[in-house]
């Protein structure tokens, strides 16, 4: 196994192992997501037929807020004991670290989505009128879009004042096209309409932003 993939694998496994033992991120994400769902349920009747039109948006808002919880803790562990500084001076490529962190966050948010989806189906009495497998595709593409930009901006916010609020401030505007695509495609699939345009947009967005984040991460990590 080459050095970069070895580093990625090692970092990813370390993060997953730490998370499995403490379950900090997943617990807080889950509870936060649940709270968001309950609060939203006060603003409209969740079981009505019309809920199918807004459910897509609500689901993604809940996932977005939960993702921010996960992203905020991405680099927190590395800051303690100067792990990040040690990484900087080592010859290890920065992108391996970035991919490992992004994959870790992707796994956390995907686990959250898998746990929350049955809850959504029950709370909003959802039934997909369109092909349900496309929802899976939208979930994967959308989560990746949030997580790749989020991990990048989390690294950017590390030495800013009000670190925790900087991440959503930077992430949300840039994610708007992806969010629009996620919400519109989910709504379209739930209502039996075509979502091809939005899925293609998500794929393009993911490709472009993953490339740019990979190109710029080393610069951001070493910005001093």
């Amino acid at each position, binding site marked *: 196994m080459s050095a970069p993939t070895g580093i990625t694998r090692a970092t990813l496994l370390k993060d997953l192992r730490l998370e499995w033992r403490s379950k900090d991120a997943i617990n807080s994400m889950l509870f936060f997501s649940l709270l968001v769902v309950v609060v939203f349920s006060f603003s409209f009747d969740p079981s009505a037929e019309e809920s199918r039109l807004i459910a897509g948006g609500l689901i993604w808002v809940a996932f977005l807020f939960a993702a921010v919880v996960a992203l905020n803790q991405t680099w927190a562990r590395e800051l303690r004991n100067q792990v990040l500084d040690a990484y900087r001076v080592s010859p290890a490529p920065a992108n391996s670290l970035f991919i490992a962190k992004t994959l870790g966050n992707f796994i956390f948010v995907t686990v959250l989505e898998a746990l929350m989806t049955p809850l959504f189906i029950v709370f909003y009495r959802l039934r997909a009128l369109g092909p349900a497998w496309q929802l899976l595709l939208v979930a994967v593409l959308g989560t990746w879009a949030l997580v790749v930009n989020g991990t990048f901006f989390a690294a*950017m916010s590390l030495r800013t004042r009000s670190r925790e609020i900087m991440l959503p401030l930077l992430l949300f*505007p*840039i994610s708007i096209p992806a969010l629009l695509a996620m919400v519109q495609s989910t709504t379209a699939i739930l209502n039996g309409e075509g979502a091809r345009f939005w899925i293609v947009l998500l794929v393009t967005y993911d490709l*472009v932003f993953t490339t740019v984040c990979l190109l710029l991460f080393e610069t951001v990590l070493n910005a001093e």
Partner: protein
Amino acid sequence: MKKAFPILGVLTAVLLIYALYMALVWAPTEKTMGNVQRIFYYHVPSAWTAFILFFVNFVASVLYLIKRKPAADIVALVSAEVGVVFCTVVLVTGPIWARPVWGIWWTWDMRLTSTLVLWLIYVSYLFLRRFSSSGQTPTLAAALAVLGALCVPFVYFSIWFFRTQHPQPVMGGGGSIDPRMLHVLLINWLAFSCFAFLVCWSRYRLEKLQRDVDHAHALASLLDPRGSGR
């Protein structure tokens, strides 16, 4: 260089006054909307000026990432600040125009929504500038500017598709424009561009001075271990 600034200032002032006269008096009154339509001569040139400034921000940020010249960083900062101001003008004149014409303050039509998202992206850039410590700010901000600029085509494309699925009233009336109106529009754009350039130049000089002062203070406190009383 120093002499050019007041000369350009006077020229810009004259041009702005001329453009104002053209917009409010000389331009023909629009058939359906009447005199309210004249805000068009502020709404559209502000938008074009903002777009140009954001493009300058993108180019300066890329230049900074490649060459690491402080001047490029200052140009990026300045163009983002002035661009946000012009974008705000667009977002304020839009509703002012919409209210008498459509009876509503805001509509989520393609143009206004895209401009709002553009504004949000560059305001977040300014937030990063303000909240990060001075060591890494130029590099981080440049990276964010590149990401933001790359996001812009996605924003327009996605909102265009979103809104053409559900047709909404389009502001500013489509179709051809009266050549006299086009003439006034271009004059206003020229005046706004000159004004934007003037403000950017002024802000550039201010920022450069501020950085030189900070640098001098830092140097002084390094050389004088008892503290320089800053």
